[in-house]
């Protein structure tokens, strides 16, 4: 990053660092100042937030019922010992 203004192309690469709270105070200020006046980057940030929210609605692949039943049986056996 140069000392000057952040370009949109540079900003999109900082979005995760921004959302993770990894930017310095000065970097965060510059990031937020850009987003405040740039419709494109503001929309991009909105898209990333939507992407995260939608990923949160996806259900991850779960264990097979058979495996779960076997585990529960193993737990019962262990309890009896």
């Amino acid at each position, binding site marked *: 990053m140069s000392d000057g203004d952040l370009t949109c192309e540079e900003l999109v690469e900082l979005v995760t660092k921004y959302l993770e709270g990894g930017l310095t105070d000065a970097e965060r200020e510059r990031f937020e100042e850009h987003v405040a006046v740039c419709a*494109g980057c503001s929309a991009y940030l909105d898209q*990333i937030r939507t*992407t995260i929210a939608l990923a949160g609605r*996806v259900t991850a692949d779960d264990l097979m019922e058979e495996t779960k039943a076997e585990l529960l049986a193993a737990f019962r056996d262990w309890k009896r010992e």
Partner: protein
Amino acid sequence: MGTYRLLVDPTAATYAPPPGQAEIVEALRLGDERVFAALVDEYGPAMLRVARMYVSSRAVAEEVVQEAWLGVIGGIGRFEGRASLKTWIFRIVSNIAKTRGEREGRSIPFSSISGGDGDGGEPAVEPDRFLGAGHRSAGHWTSAPSRWSELPEERLVAGETLGIVEGAIAALPEVQRTVITLRDVEGWSSDEVRNALDLSETNQRVILHRARAKVRRALETYLDGERT
């Protein structure tokens, strides 16, 4: 990266187990089946995903997770609560998965990461979406992305849209897929992911960045493509 490095020192005086953990551990020791089943439901998908990074197939990953739970059952009596139960469980599953993967002759995906599965410095957004060098506003959007939060809610959360997200996540390289699954699908904190996968703060973030960027692209193709 071979040795396990706890990023939050569990022996530090400030470490306190998460609320409710002591009760869960006690219930497991007493043989409470409901508590055990709930834990298997809660952590099963994430354990499967972590195991899948190291072993060759879904079936082997399932075996690894099963073995890990047997390890949890057998070891709960000795669990000292110096790390969180979650950290302890995921350390067990990743150790078993690594051993199994080595036996299968698979290389550990992390050995080559400089941020994610060998896709180098691929940008988050296609370079042609920005004005090129020489232009007065070089590096600015050629045309602004659309604002998805203004789309009707029912369109965003429609099964088809979620299917696009799911498909895009499934198409990611293993490490990226695991990080985004733990962070955004399962809702883990970055510290939890770093502990479970033994990643530095920077690596975790770079991998997550690439993963989210690819899922966003897939969504953009789908959501914006249809409108035109």
